């Protein structure tokens, strides 16, 4: 086990897979000479040369299209979209092309492409550079969706993503790049569709992913002081989704909180909540609570930005709202 930041763990996976398989290429804006806008790919250009670490022009729609075409014909491209906020420029290639070719062709074509990107708040970067748009992706059949919360998962899931024959959207979180954690010495792909129990507990299940796992863990720590045992489930992949892990946890605790940084309406948090009702509704001792991003564009001013996404306080409040803890819910 080595301790390293999330960004280095990602780089490690890229390095390993590019070494292992010559067909893997990395392409995107500033991935080469600059080393990546968030320094994930630093050094890879030197290691693998410009034919495999490809700096692209600012032409997002076409870059993803090139990735699709390369994936259809034998390469295994990892395409970096600098911000998930730019999805709007590429959703045709993502949703109509990458996602659909396998199906439309009756299995004749495959698109083993990874679309790596990053999202979320934390840098007061404004409404066009701070979004959490995973809900658009989760809605589209044909796409795998991965959102790692820890360095170990970043590495292990990226490995799996690159080896997958299906198109994978891999969303990192800009506020996690510097987060350190233990990472196994050997490349161990982490299978898709297996949630991780980030913390065991018996009183309430907090179902979440990406940066919100850490918010949930802090809330759990706060609740422990009140004698409440919070279980935190880190989903790791939203497609495939580990419904078994969710229902098992909720059946055990009888209470569920869903936490997501994405806007609340018509989102991942809606889906997770309704799935809990559908598959473990009979076991619920309190209504499922959603703690999600507010339905407003992300403001630039720091205090407002923080208010736009779930806080530890809000998760604590939601837990208390299910009837647990010494404090009573305000509302």
């Amino acid at each position: 086990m080595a301790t390293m930041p999330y960004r280095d763990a990602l780089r490690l996976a890229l390095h390993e897979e590019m070494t292992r398989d010559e067909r893997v290429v990395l392409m995107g804006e500033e991935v080469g000479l600059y080393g990546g806008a968030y320094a994930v790919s630093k050094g890879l250009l030197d290691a693998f040369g410009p034919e495999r670490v490809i700096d692209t022009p600012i032409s997002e729609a076409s870059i993803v299209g090139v990735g699709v075409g390369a994936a259809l014909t034998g390469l295994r491209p990892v395409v970096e979209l600098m911000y998930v906020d730019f999805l709007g420029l590429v959703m045709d290639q993502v949703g109509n092309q990458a996602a659909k070719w396998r199906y439309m062709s009756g299995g004749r074509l495959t698109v083993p492409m990874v679309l790596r990107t990053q999202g979320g708040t934390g840098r007061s970067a404004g409404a066009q550079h701070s979004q959490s748009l995973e809900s658009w992706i989760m809605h589209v059949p044909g796409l795998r969706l991965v959102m790692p919360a820890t360095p170990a998962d970043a590495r292990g899931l990226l490995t799996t993503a690159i080896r997958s024959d299906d198109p994978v959207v891999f969303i990192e979180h800009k506020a996690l790049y510097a987060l350190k954690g233990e990472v196994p010495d050997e490349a161990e792909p982490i299978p898709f569709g297996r949630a991780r129990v980030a913390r065991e507990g018996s009183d309430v299940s907090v179902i979440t992913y990406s940066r919100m796992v850490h918010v949930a863990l802090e809330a759990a720590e706060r609740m422990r002081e009140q004698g409440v045992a919070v279980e935190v489930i880190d989903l790791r992949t939203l497609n495939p989704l580990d419904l078994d892990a969710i229902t098992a946890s909720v059946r055990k605790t009888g209470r569920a909180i869903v936490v997501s940084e994405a806007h609340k309406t018509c989102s991942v948090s809606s889906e997770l909540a309704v799935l809990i009702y559908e598959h473990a509704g009979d076991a619920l001792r309190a209504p499922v609570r959603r703690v999600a991003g507010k339905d407003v564009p992300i403001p630039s001013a720091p205090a407002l930005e923080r208010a736009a996404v779930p806080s530890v306080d809000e998760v604590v409040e939601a837990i208390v709202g299910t009837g647990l803890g010494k404090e009573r819910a305000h509302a």
Partner: protein
Amino acid sequence: MRVEGHIAMPQHTSPPPETRVALLRTMLRIRETEERIGASHLRGLTAGSMLHLSIGEEAIAAGVGLAMRDGDLFTTHHRGHGIFIARGADLDRMMAEVFGKRDGYLQGKGGSMHIADIALGHMGANAIVGANIPISVGGGLSAKALTPGVVSVAFFGDGALQQGVLYESMNMAALWHLPVAFVVVNNQYGMGTRLERASASLRFVERAETFGLVAREVDGMDVEAVYAVAQNLLEQARGGQPVFLMAHGYRFYGHGRKDPSPYRSKEEEQAWRLRDPVEQQRVRLLEAGALSEDAYEQMLREAREACDKAVAFATASPELPVEDLYTDVYVEQEAN
């Protein structure tokens, strides 16, 4: 318009006799198949309300298609039957796909607008105008890395000249020295919009040059001219110099088979029909003594028999069972 400098016709010398005949045979095969598909559509036998025929554009499909080699990659737009036939499509499976049947190329899941067969280099017909273009650039990226000598060809209509991805894609192909050819099947219209009403300037060839491409235009009703210029351009593309070819033609039917084309004049249609590429080539070969009437009749008969067979095959094929709705969403289904 700088037409003169670019029209490739004047220079071309005739291809070898067997190629000249093959060009005609290919066009006939396209023409007959497309007519049969159109007739089947009118009789309600095809799947879906949309059907885009390439009748009138056969010289472009055959000319470029025969200039390509085994292993070459391509994508098409929504009007791609003819191009795929020129690249060796199995008519039975193609017809079955257009009929929405299980034995179609895509098991009926894709339909006429999405036919694909990677074994023949076909990366897919696309129903999103322009979306196939960067995908073909990706094919070029693979070709350069994995199969040097292969060229990746994007076929698209004049309508796609107004999609920004074309320009992004041309730039990337040139920047990375990829073996990519951009072929415009200019049939003068995008639905009801004549090219002049969609583009403020018609200097497309010059334009492509300013993106770093070698660019030409050609009379898309003359299959030998198309073949000659395509051969020349594809050779350059194989060497890593991406190319652009604007082939001027016409679609004899409407946008969809049932579109009566009220937006264009009967005189215009007639003028183009007089330049029917199949007929032109037939006459040219007969006059040159490169083909006998008998041989032509035989060729036509074969094309028709192939269509009969394909329609019979498509008709006999069942629909995919509804249980298969969920297959092939993912390769790794079990993960779900």
